[in-house]
């Protein structure tokens, strides 16, 4: 951030909104946007307490007579599989992804930011290039590869990329962060005889905590929400993640289990929303810096 020092600049009017009328208009505008933005989230909370057949038609946000049947219905699971199984699978996928990203991306970022090796610029450009590459070009050939290797219907295809630093966004985020760390620290460590391994582990990593936290939370949420990966690679309901398992609630033969769908939607959103509430500063700051000095 520049030295604006928290001073705020507006549409063109320097300084803050002037006067009470301006401030009122500002809040009215912001509240209007807020109402539209939050409506779907509030709606899903209210709807999950409505009886299944009222969910679509009723206009009140919260039912006069709330019922818990949608949630108790979840306890029965779906197609003989407990909802807890989906949650365990998603948790395994998300935590496995976080571990992979933290290790592989930070190692790569350290090399880019701190080791002057031959070919570094070329590799860095390649890495930035993969940031813009549509993932879908890789979909078919990767599937063919994992199918030939007998790894379809396992979590290997979903996780392996995370351990091989293919998520360029996080490498980039960490490189940006590491470049801003004072160089004197590792030069001093170097004079004391520390090698790169030691500098990476004892100096750079601890100082990178904010970038690591941001990457970890984004990774967790991305894996939790991931739909296409599990859809393509997992084909046995016992291995389904939450997002894939949820799809079993959708209308089959014209009858939708709306109550189950909506209650499950809410339950599936909860971890993401809680993470967001707890760590929103890391997420938003991480997002904000990604666009600057890119």
């Amino acid at each position: 951030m520049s030295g604006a020092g928290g001073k705020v600049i507006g549409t063109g009017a320097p300084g803050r909104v002037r006067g009470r009328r301006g401030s009122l208009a500002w809040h009215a505008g912001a509240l209007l946007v807020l109402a539209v933005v939050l409506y779907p989230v509030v709606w899903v909370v209210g709807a999950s307490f409505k009886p299944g057949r009222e969910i679509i038609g009723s206009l009140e946000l919260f039912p006069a007579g709330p019922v818990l049947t949608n949630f108790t219905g979840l306890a029965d699971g779906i197609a003989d599989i407990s909802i807890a199984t989906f949650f365990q699978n998603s948790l395994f996928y998300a935590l496995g992804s976080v571990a992979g990203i933290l290790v592989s991306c930070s190692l790569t970022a350290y090399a880019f930011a701190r080791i002057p090796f031959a070919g570094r610029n070329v590799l860095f450009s390649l890495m930035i290039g993969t940031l813009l590459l549509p993932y879908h070009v890789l979909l078919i050939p990767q599937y063919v590869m994992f199918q030939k290797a007998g790894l379809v219907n396992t979590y290997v295809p979903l996780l392996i990329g995370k351990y091989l630093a293919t998520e360029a966004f996080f490498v980039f985020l960490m490189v940006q962060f590491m470049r801003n760390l004072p160089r004197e620290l590792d030069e001093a460590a170097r004079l004391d005889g520390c090698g790169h391994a030691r500098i990476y582990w004892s100096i750079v990593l601890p100082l990178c905590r904010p970038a690591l936290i941001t990457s970890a939370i984004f990774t967790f949420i991305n894996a939790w929400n991931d739909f296409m990966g599990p859809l393509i690679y997992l084909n046995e309901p016992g291995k389904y993640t939450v997002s894939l398992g949820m799809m079993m609630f959708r209308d089959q033969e014209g009858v939708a289990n709306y109550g189950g769908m909506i209650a499950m939607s809410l339950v599936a959103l909860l971890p993401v929303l809680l993470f967001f509430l707890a760590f929103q500063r890391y997420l938003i700051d991480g997002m904000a810096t990604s666009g600057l000095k890119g």
Partner: protein
Amino acid sequence: MGTAVTLVKDSPPGTAPARLGAPGAVRRRRRGENLAGYLFMSPWIAGFLLLTAGPMAASLYFAFTDYNLFDAPRWIGLDNFTALFDDPRWQKSVEVTAKYVVIGTPLKLLLALGVALLLAQSRRGQAFYRAAFYAPSLIGASVSVGFVWRALFSDGAVVDRTQSFLGLGSGGWVGDPGRVLYSLVALTVWQFGAPMVIFLAGLKQVPRELYEAAEVDGAGPLRRFWSITLPMLSPVLFFNVLLETIHSFQIFGSAYVVSNTTCGPADATLVYTCYLYQKGFKESQMGFASAMAWMLLLAVALVTAVLFWSQKRWVHYEEDVR
């Protein structure tokens, strides 16, 4: 990207060698750095070869073959590409995707910029609104929100009732081939928070003195926006346009879920990736699907190239960065 330049910060001549003395030591040290560099990079290099470069080459080869995953690929030259251009569903998928990108991305970015400008005016409450507006970007791609969207845009649900009340016709959007795509546009616009956060950060970096000087010179708010805010914000705008456009080409999950896995009705939400998925994973036409993927890559590369070419005209980079 200007970042690559800052990388070339090799040790300035005279410092390190002087300390280490003999040229042999320098060479040894340099070799040591190379070894360390490639060691640290080895996961990325393995991933790049195994999961990016290799598959890309394979995909290019498949694009010229007839391949069903079980029999060996059979070389058929350009047949997949000619078949693709003759395929009405492929044309439909191009049309649907183009419409989605061209309508959704500008709307989303305009809203993001507008709200960022609004929020930037006052510090009170800014952090709260910023967080609240950002939240949809985190959950927008989830199946949960897809379900919610399908429900909100069904017959007799809130969107239907609102439009009837306003006299704009009746019927839910998800069942109407003419309108269902707009429910997906609404879903992407709803996620304006991510680009908004980036715009806000960019606005904070505009030097305040510029506005003060302009005000002294008698420039009105519109003039100040046009001559100061917009040029100063243009690099951030460029970044947002580039990323949002590339992302929206790749929409899949929300179309798949909101359309109840059909990408319909009547192929009205058959976005490009949906068709690619159907061809590749439902019909096992790996060759055709690979050809499709390469066409998508070409389209994205073309758009990226045009954007980078156009930035000379409208993106204003400060001379004295760093």
